[in-house]
């Protein structure tokens, strides 16, 4: 625990002092022309989409040519940026202040069309058609948990390559899905490889490639068991699917590895987003460790929705005791009732602050040196550019 524990007067998350964790310099990050990609990750409900959009808007209004890519199916970014419809193509966001020479485009990931594009680019037209029409492919490309994360990275790779070639953007901000699987893209190349080289593929391809040679006793057992459990029709569909995909898998693997390398490159910065809640900070710790383990460049932690620090110095205990003294006098009257209410409100806030400070201190103790920006909770929801600008200012405030 830090020596500055939750004491009155400096308990607020906003009272982070230099010895605890370095401040995340958001403006330095987004102004640096070397920063080409910012990936925001974190658990659900912590304001990740808002943070990505606010970072993108701020960067754009400070002169960067920015595109923000969201993959959140709730279309929250669409709402927060006042755009009715987002699809797989970046669209310019209206009312962005372009006086500094920057611009902002936004797009929503369409998982299925991204997947389709990859298949079309990797396979011959007949083969691509066979894959696109296979029932397994249709389900895989629309609902498989993990496809979304992987396709987001695929799209990131595409936009990045495009931007390199045509100079369309000099900064890409990526939002990630709200789950632990948000880091699935880190595993995608490896998972794909182990799948490709695995026995399962060989098993599925065996009948097509010459059963006589490969049909060992074990294989026969497995095929028999699968037929029993799945039914013969499903097994046939599955075999067709795997056989069709087999030819394009090599391309998939190469692309996945390129994207992985891109994420590790110096121009990329990961921003972990959290809220001062036990679950969100635990997830944030997991992300930080995971990113370090994979040698991914971590820029820092953003703690959203922090309770604002109160101005007056009055502890929760003192406030409650005073409220009780007022109420104990019996006929408190309207002013008495009001004052007691104010004191209880204050006590509640002080207790919340103490809890948040303890949670953050725990995170910092385990992960010292992670640059942190703390954004106080706003009284109202963010759903327009004005709100995003305000969040951007709060993010950059040091």
């Amino acid at each position, binding site marked *: 625990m830090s020596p500055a524990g939750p004491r009155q007067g400096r308990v607020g998350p906003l009272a982070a002092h230099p010895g605890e964790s370095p401040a995340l310099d958001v403006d330095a990050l987004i102004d640096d022309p070397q920063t080409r990609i910012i990936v925001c990750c974190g*658990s*659900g*409900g912590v304001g990740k989409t808002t943070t990505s959009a606010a970072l993108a808007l701020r960067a754009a209004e400070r002169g960067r040519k920015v595109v923000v890519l969201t993959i959140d*199916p*709730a279309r929250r970014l669409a*709402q927060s940026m006042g755009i009715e419809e987002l699809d797989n193509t970046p669209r310019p966001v209206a009312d962005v202040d372009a006086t500094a020479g920057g611009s902002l485009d936004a797009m929503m990931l369409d998982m299925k069309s991204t997947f389709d594009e990859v298949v079309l680019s990797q396979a011959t037209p007949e083969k691509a058609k066979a894959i696109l029409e296979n*029932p*397994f492919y*249709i*389900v895989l490309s629309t*609902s*498989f948990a993990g496809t979304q994360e992987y396709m987001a990275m695929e799209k990131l790779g595409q936009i990045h390559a495009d931007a390199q070639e045509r100079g369309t953007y000099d900064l890409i901000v990526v939002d990630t899905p709200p*789950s*632990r699987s948000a880091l699935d893209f880190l595993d995608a190349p490896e998972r794909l490889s182990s*799948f490709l080289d*695995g*026995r*399962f593929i060989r*098993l599925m391809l065996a009948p097509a490639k010459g059963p006589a040679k490969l049909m060992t006793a*074990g294989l026969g057992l*497995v095929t028999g*068991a*699968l037929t*029993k*459990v*799945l*039914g*013969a*029709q*499903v097994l046939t569909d599955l075999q067709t699917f795997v056989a069709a995909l087999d030819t394009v898998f090599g391309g998939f693997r190469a692309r996945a590895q390129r994207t992985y390398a891109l994420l590790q490159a110096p121009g990329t910065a990961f921003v972990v987003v959290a*809220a001062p*809640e036990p*679950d*969100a900070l635990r997830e944030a710790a997991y992300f930080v460790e995971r990113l370090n383990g994979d040698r991914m460049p971590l820029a820092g932690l953003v703690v959203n929705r922090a309770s*604002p620090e*109160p*101005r*007056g*110095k*009055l502890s929760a205990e003192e406030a409650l005791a*005073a409220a009780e*003294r*007022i109420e104990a006098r019996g006929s408190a009257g309207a*002013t*008495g*009732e*009001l*004052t*007691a*209410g*104010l004191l*209880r*409100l*204050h006590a509640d806030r002080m*207790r919340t602050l103490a*809890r948040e400070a303890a949670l953050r201190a725990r995170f910092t103790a385990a992960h010292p040196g992670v640059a942190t920006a703390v954004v106080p909770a706003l*009284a*109202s*929801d963010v*759903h327009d550019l004005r709100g995003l600008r305000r969040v951007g200012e709060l993010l950059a405030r040091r």
Partner: protein
Amino acid sequence: MSSDWPRVRLHVVTGKGGTGKTTVAASLALALASQGKNVLVCEVEGRQGLARMFDVDPLPYAETLIATGLRTGPDGAGTRPGTVHALHIDPESALLEYLAMYYRLGRAGKALDRFGVIEFATTIAPGVRDVLLTGKVFEAVQRNSRNKGAIQYDAVVLDAPPTGRITQFLNVSDELAGLAKVGPIKSQADTMMTLFRSPRTAVHLVTVLEEMPVQETADGIEELRAAGLPVGGVIVNLVRPRDLPDDALALAAAGKLDKEAVRAELDAVGVSTTKTLVDGLAAEARDHAERRALEESQRALVDQLGVPTYELERLAGGIDLGGLYDLAATLRDQGLA
């Protein structure tokens, strides 16, 4: 107070991330147990949130007794309290158990694992993961003779995936429709759907009084209804305390609190006041009033959803086991359990 959902055997608890889905699932399980029911609470997302909530070791793939309900009744010793078991469902274990229960595969079962089939089915094969998870939940609700010696539960509570995914998660037959039009998997999925669509199931949605969670709740209800899945109640979580009377709220919002009177009141009970302190209290009140106004506007939207609503207060110190029992009592008093 009697329960609004007496016929429900399967309580599915969903909600947007960060709204306290696991907290509500755990409290609901305790609330049901306090009425003498034997309850199983399941989690399916591998987060071990229940273990943390109940302060026990990480849960295995085995029904584990983690709590007993409160003793209730007029004399405090009336109803015999029920129990809460918890189960952490992972797709691998669920698949192996399913195969063992329904197919005598013997050596072939081991071969499936060796050939990477289990891994394929649980990680890569589309839609299968969800079906395995819901399949186990179904089995726990509708126990049959294949699972020998298993506990018969009066109710099962599922800490389910978030609102955005819940319809897809429960709608197993649609998810599999493209894959298996006939065969054993198809008929299994159909049996499960019969339970999920029946009045013995209720899908409860947890929200907080903020714009996006309320919007997602409304969208979620619409999707559930479109899929023919029974919508339960909406649990409004983390409601701010109401320490200020309404007229004071209005004044605070307008910045018109009588600070001098407040200061005099504080002085009278021995609080050493400064201008900063009194201004600070007024600023906190204004901030609070603004949030309360936002909450009220969202509450109006929740009321329009046309489903029973329940309300849980925000606990400043966070949730611990004691807090869970308090929340359970609140849910029971309001009729969710």
